[in-house]
Structure formats: structure tokens, C-alpha cells
């Protein structure tokens, strides 16, 4: 079953398997080529990018937590133009569409990025990442600016403001919502001994975000696709998001610990959704089975 994210006057993003990596976890292109079969995934979502180059923060840090991790990198990237030059060939070779994650900095930069990316055929869609503490007005301005892109625009909502931003962002032109970015948190850095802040990953994030997806699915227009993202660590986790109303999921830090998990989830969900539509039993699909052969006629739904 394919998912199409489309809007009149725009190109479509067609995702064959409703599973992709979350921005920030799988790199900019094919860094995981020796560990993951990219063809099993629905799309590649790149690491966050910006118009201007960003350098790593001085305090790059990884803090192990109980059943989780805090990470803070400063989201280094060489800036959008350099990045496109560096990776477009690798993107062209990937068997799946590339969704470029653009950090929301200013509306002017978002507009520039939109224009720049419309000229890059290797990018199939743009995902705009909204920062923490972005207000509704700023979010709307950023989304309006980014929505000038002719490709589909996904918008990733911050964890704490997800509920508040979802509707205004949708009305400002988002073609799909990604719920959510990893929540920010504070932990004691084993290295430096101080309290430091960063993104929090781990399985316990899942019940929190799953609830938001379920609630917002009931509140938002039914034709607005929601992509679930947060604490997915197993095929079951991913199915729960689909059942809560997400059309697709993004897997984040689980890939670091178990690279094969992303592929496993992708195969499971690809198979699950295909068989469900054919009225088959769940049991006929086992995550360790090879990917299902594509049906002869593969429609878009």
C-alpha cells in the first residue's frame, strides 16, 4: 500500500512503506548503507539543515539515561547549498524518496530554502522542523514561508507545543504533520558533572506522543495526514501509531542501538498494512519474513 501526500498545484510524495527515519538519526544520505536496506524504507528523512552553515556546539554531549539517552549536537550542517552539492548524487542513487529536513529559523530563510529546494530534483519533499518555544505566530509565519515550495511540505511539531500548534500550522499550509520532535530535557552530564539540556530519546517517550497523536487525529481534519514519531522501538510500537490514526511513522534513536530494527519495522508495517487491506490474518506476516513481493497493480490510496 502506498501513501500519497499531495495537494493541488504541488508534486506528490509517494511513500511505498509507511516507515522512515526521524530527522537527525540516519544522517544526510546513505551513511547506514552497510547496515540497512534502504529499499525497505518508505523514504529517507535527512538530518536537520539550515540555509547558513551551523557548526557543532562546543558542548556536544551524549548522556546515557535509564532506558534512554540525551543527545545534544547543535545540529551541525554545511548550509543548504553546500549540502545539496555534497549529497545530491548520493540522493539520486537511493531507491527511495528523499525528504529534506529544514530547520525553521526565519521566514525569510525558509522562503529562500523553499526556492532553492524546488530546483533540486533529488529532493521529493521538505520537512520543516519547528523549534521549541516557537510561538503560534512565528510558527505560522515559518510554515507560510516554507509552503511556497512546490513539493509537499511536512511540518514536524515540537513535543511540548504539539497540541497548540497543530491546527494553526495545518491551516498555514502544512501538507502533513509529523508528531513530534524528540522532547528536550535536562540531565547530569557524566563528563562535566553539570546539568545539561538536549533531546531525550527512549521507549518511554512513546506513550506520551502516542496519546497526542490519538487526540489530535480526532480533532484535526481527517484528510490531513499525521506521521507519528516518538519512542518507536518495535513493530508493535509502530502499529500502535497506525492504529491511533497515523498514516506513517518515523523511527528515531532505536536505529542507533539496533540498526536492523528500522528495517524490521518497515517490513512488518509494509506487510501488515498490505495484508490488512486484503482481509488477511495478522499472523500471516512475520517480521522475519522477507519483504512481500509488490502486488501486480499497486494503486495509490
Amino acid at each position: 500500500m502506498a501513501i500519497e501526500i499531495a495537494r493541488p498545484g504541488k508534486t506528490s510524495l509517494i511513500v511505498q512503506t509507511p516507515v522512515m527515519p526521524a530527522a537527525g538519526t540516519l544522517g544526510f544520505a546513505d551513511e547506514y548503507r552497510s547496515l540497512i536496506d534502504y529499499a525497505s524504507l518508505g523514504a529517507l528523512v535527512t538530518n536537520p539543515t539550515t540555509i547558513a552553515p551551523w557548526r557543532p556546539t562546543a558542548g556536544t554531549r551524549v548522556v546515557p539515561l535509564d532506558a534512554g539517552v540525551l543527545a545534544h549536537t547543535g545540529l551541525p550542517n554545511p548550509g543548504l547549498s553546500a549540502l545539496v552539492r555534497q549529497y545530491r548524487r548520493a540522493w539520486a542513487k537511493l531507491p527511495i524518496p528523499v525528504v529534506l529536513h529544514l530547520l525553521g529559523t526565519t521566514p525569510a530563510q525558509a522562503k529562500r530554502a523553499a526556492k532553492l529546494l524546488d530546483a533540486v530534483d533529488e529532493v521529493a519533499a521538505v520537512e520543516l522542523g519547528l523549534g521549541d518555544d516557537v510561538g503560534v505566530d512565528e510558527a505560522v509565519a515559518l510554515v507560510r514561508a516554507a509552503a511556497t515550495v512546490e513539493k509537499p511540505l511536512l511540518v514536524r511539531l515540537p513535543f511540548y507545543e504539539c497540541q497548540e500548534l497543530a491546527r494553526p500550522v495545518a491551516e498555514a499550509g502544512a501538507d502533513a504533520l509529523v508528531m513530534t520532535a524528540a522532547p528536550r530535557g535536562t540531565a547530569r552530564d557524566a563528563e562535566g558533572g553539570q546539568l545539561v539540556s538536549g533531546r531525550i530519546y527512549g521507549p518511554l517517550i512513546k506513550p506520551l506522543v502516542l496519546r497526542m497523536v490519538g487526540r489530535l487525529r480526532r480533532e484535526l481534519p481527517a484528510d490531513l495526514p499525521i506521521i507519528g514519531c516518538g519512542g518507536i522501538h518495535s513493530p508493535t510500537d509502530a502499529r500502535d501509531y497506525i492504529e491511533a490514526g497515523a498514516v506513517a511513522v518515523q523511527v528515531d534513536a532505536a536505529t542507533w542501538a539496533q540498526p536492523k530494527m528500522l528495517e524490521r519495522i518497515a517490513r512488518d508495517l509494509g506487510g501488515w498494512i498490505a495484508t490488512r487491506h486484503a482481509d488477511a490474518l495478522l499472523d500471516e506476516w512475520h517480521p522475519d519474513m522477507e519483504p512481500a513481493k509488490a502486488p501486480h497493480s499497486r494503486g495509490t490510496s
Partner: protein
Amino acid sequence: MRETQAIVERIKRVNRGYQRLELAVDRSLSALLPGQALLVRRISKDYAAEIWHPYLRDLWFPVDVLASNILVVEQPAREQFVPGQLLSLLGPIGKPLRFRQKLRNLLLLAYATPPTPLLMMLPPLLEQGTSLTMVTMGSARDYDCAHLPEEVEIIQASDDHSWGDMVMTLGWADQIFALVGEGPELIRFAEIMRLIRSRRSDVPANTIFGIFQRQLPCGVGACQACMLPVRPSARLQCLDGPAFDLTQLRLA
């Protein structure tokens, strides 16, 4: 870089604080060289019984290759292992250490860390006639070196991090590899550099290397959490490390 499985075959206590594990590994890993590491996760046969604590993989620097499919690692004795334990290995991680051609005197510094990542190089370098000195500083002095090859000269630094013959040891070394632990590594490496500069007038490029041991989330250059402030531009420990020229590092 591949993901493979390994089995703990044999466990031997080597001193008060450490044990060595013999791992039956995929043959491709026998080509592993000093400086290269593995990202390790305990697994069980039942894939559904996945445990997410600890969350990230451990970074293990093997200490020996015994046969085409047996690697040896050294682990703290307090870590519980049993023969038959399954491991998932990602690796090899990083680039092999690069030694000078005609390396005569190699100095190894371990500061507040067990010297494990330095051990794999000892036998081959001794065999080619290199003279090896290892200085332990701070809590690294607690590490019992009795099981290491006896040709390696072991020096315990005093509390102020100096030792007898310090000027000579530092001056004669063709190459120095330093290892630090506990606390901010850039600050620790800066201390090491100050120490060396205070006793040795010239510190040319490509002579003194710091070996980094950060916990690596991905190991493949994707997450960018292991980025280090190296000149001219930032580098990744997982792809370009673990060793970086300390004269090229923007130290804290």
C-alpha cells in the same frame, strides 16, 4: 562496517579489577587493527525480548586477535558475563592507528582510565623491535599491569603527574598516544599537552595523538554526536578517529 553476532566463549580473570573475554566472532573481524573498536550490545535469542537498558552500545577496543574468529576483550570484573552470552557487534569502528615507519620509541600515556585501548598494539610493536613505555597517571595507576608483556616499561607517575626521567621519556619518544578518562576529555587532553610542552620544546604535528573513547550513538557518521573540534574542520570520532593529532585539536 557490518552488524554481526558473537558468543562469549571463555572468561578469564586477569587481575583484581579486570577479566578477559574470548569472543567467537565473524571472520571478517579478524582483520581488525589496533585503534579499531566494536559497538557492542548484549542480545538474546528471543528478538522480542529486546531490553533497552543500557540504551546505547558499549565501545569495546579488543586487546588481541587469537585466531581467525576469536577476539579478546578486556572488561571490568564487576560486569557479569557467562559463557554462551550472545552479543551483537557493529564494526570495525574507526581507523587503525598510524605508526611512524621505523618507530623506535613509543610512549603511551593513560590518564585516569584503564589503558585497554592501548593494549592491542603491544605484541606486534614489540615484535618489530619498538621500545615501549607506558605511563599511568591519576587513577590509571590503580590498573594492575602484571599481565602485560614484561618488555613494556611501566611507569607510575606521581600525584603531580610527573615522573623520573620525564624529560628524557618525553623527548626520546618518536610518537606518543594518550588516553584520558573521567571528566571532560578536552580539558584532560589540554592538561596532557601542557605537561608535554612544559618538558619538551618541539611538539611537531603527527607526533602526539589523543585517543578518544566517547560513547558513540550510531558509529556510522549519521548522528553527529561524536563530532570533535579538529582543525581545519570538525571531524567524527566514529569515522575519522579514535586518534586525533592533539596539535590540531581545539582544546578546552
